[in-house]
């Protein structure tokens, strides 16, 4: 489905939160690389999709009613074969039904396990006065505890994006600290500009989280994404 179709369907269904698959499809259309993610509505489909991707894979519950997937026991990572996928599928269904009994669960999303990279976060939110703003930071503890992030007002240009990436306290961690893989800053900057252009051109989006994004020495990949729509 195209971005326009996804947005109009969510509106019709009076949903504010898009599913991970919808979010990634929209970001993909905006030029932002995401891990390929496919919906499986049955255990058998989960297995066939996994075999197509190749192991290991990740299964996540796909439900518009469950936004905290991990809390619901709805995320299983590093699944290495058919048996593990089948078991994970059953475990996710059981756990999520118990966690949210009335939830409408459409199945699981299946995606190949991304090669670990430097974890970063990118996002967007809206300010009453400044309108949409974009954010960049290091992922995990850096964003959650230290709030080491940089914001800019949309629209941003390449210069702004470069200042964002170089503007965080922990930028050394992007530069191959202690022998770690360096992060492709140019691609991260480009993704920020793509994110900015997308939200600038697309009304009705309230918040976006791309978290985590794995940054590699050659490119970067959005591993999980969330899009929240504005009140109409």
């Amino acid at each position, binding site marked *: 489905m195209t971005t326009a179709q996804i947005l109009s369907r969510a509106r019709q269904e009076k949903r*504010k*939160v898009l599913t991970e698959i919808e979010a990634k499809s929209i970001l993909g259309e905006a030029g932002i690389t995401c891990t390929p993610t496919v919906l499986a509505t049955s255990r058998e489909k989960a297995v066939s999709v996994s075999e197509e991707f190749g192991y290991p894979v990740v299964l996540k519950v796909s439900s518009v009613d469950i*936004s905290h997937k991990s809390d619901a026991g709805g995320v299983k990572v590093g699944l290495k074969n058919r048996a593990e996928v089948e078991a994970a599928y059953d475990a996710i269904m059981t756990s999520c039904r118990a966690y949210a009994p009335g939830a409408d669960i459409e199945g699981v999303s299946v995606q190949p396990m991304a090669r670990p990279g430097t974890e970063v*976060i990118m*996002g*967007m*939110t809206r*300010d*009453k*006065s*400044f*309108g949409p*703003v974009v*954010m960049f930071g290091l992922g995990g503890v850096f*964003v*959650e505890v230290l*709030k080491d*992030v*940089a*914001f*800019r*007002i*949309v629209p*941003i240009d390449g210069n*702004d994006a470069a*200042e964002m990436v170089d*503007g965080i306290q922990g930028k050394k961690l992007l530069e191959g600290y202690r022998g770690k893989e360096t992060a492709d800053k140019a691609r991260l900057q480009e993704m920020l500009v793509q994110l900015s252009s997308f939200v600038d051109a697309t009304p009705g989006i*309230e*918040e*976006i*989280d791309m*978290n985590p994004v794995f940054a590699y020495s050659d490119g970067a990949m959005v591993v999980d994404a*969330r899009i*929240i729509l504005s009140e109409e």
Partner: protein
Amino acid sequence: MMELFFKPRSVAIVGASGSPGKLGYVIVNNIKGSDFAGAVYPVNPKADEILGYKVYKSIAEIPGAVDLVITALPTPKMTVATLEECAQKGVKAVIIESAGFAEMGGEGKVYQQQIVDIAKKNNIRVMGPNCSGIVSRDIVTSIYPMTKKVPRGNVVLIGQSGLLAAGMASDIVENESLNISKVCSIGNKCDVNENDLLEYFGEQADVDVISMYLETISDGRNLTRITKKIAAKKPVIFLSGGRTEAGAKAAMSHTGSIASNAKIVEAAVKQTGMIMADDFTELKDFAKVFSTQPLPKGNRVAVITLAGSVGVNVSDLCASHGLELPKLTAETTEKLKDMFDTPVSNPVDLYFSVTKIGFTKTLETTFPDAFRDANIDAAVLILAGFEYTQEAVQKKIIQKIVQDVGKPVVVCMIVGYNKYKHVIMDEMGKELPVFPSLISGVKALSKLCQYGMRRQKLSA
């Protein structure tokens, strides 16, 4: 459109008064004291003449066209009625100085909305309410008595709070501490907001520096767009009040929960190249530095001192404010070898030179030699309040050197305030940026260097 506010050909003051001390009197008196050469029409149903001007009973009664109406009326209701009269008359610019509108909530908000509606319908631009309008050479609409003429300077000050802006304007003009051109207070910003003024001042060739204080940001997206454009040509110094760390809303994303208003304002400052001031003194002080000093090409600073301990402190301050203290070139070191008991270093300690050739001569020769050094972009000059400092100040030696060398300097005064504050701070402060503390001078210079480097980068 903004020209009607700043260069009106005729002005009416509704609520003008003949009793000294009343706001309606101060405004008329301030206009009288300015260079305003157009027609002045005080409006008051109960007076015949105020300060030599013929008084009119109503706006309708005024014979000619009126470019600008200023209102200082006791009730919001009367103000709304006046705006209706302005619409009838065809007035296109109104400054509403009275309070009692949106800032009071409740009924005041309703009255303000009525004003907005009338203004929109009739294409009237409204400044205020709850403001003091404009302080300039050509017209003063403020409620704060002015004692001297406003200079035709190169700095404009945009403020929100009427009394504060008017008070600052009065101090600045009285003390000649800043080469101001206009001070403008926009109060509740029911129509004319900071973006209108920024666009106007951004285009004015005689405005070199814009200094702005806001309690609320009317339209941050446009503010970002406009200031980015202006800051590429002229410095915009910005003090933002009411920044909070609390998130603006209950967010569903990480991004939304971290995005506090303070962080977004800070982002806008970085993105646009504005210069962030942290208090009203800095708003004025930074404007002083930016309006009097050339832009440095980098952040390499020479610290000029007469006491080692002071130099150490300033070095530390420079380091924490992103300024570097490089070594002087071998050439300079060689040239100055007789003026120092040990090879010249940075901070440049002039003590030996002063004992050898005296203070004035040292300032005239040793200081400029160090200042001219190819490794140096700017200087912090520390002056102590001593008897011998007076001569140098009176001869304007420092001003001459700064002009001659073409690099920026900030002067920091240390000790001797009781006796020499008026000489160093007040007199020299009319021309040069002189600070009462080391940290304030270093911080101001760091802002200048930061901005200078940004401009270098932009033009590269």
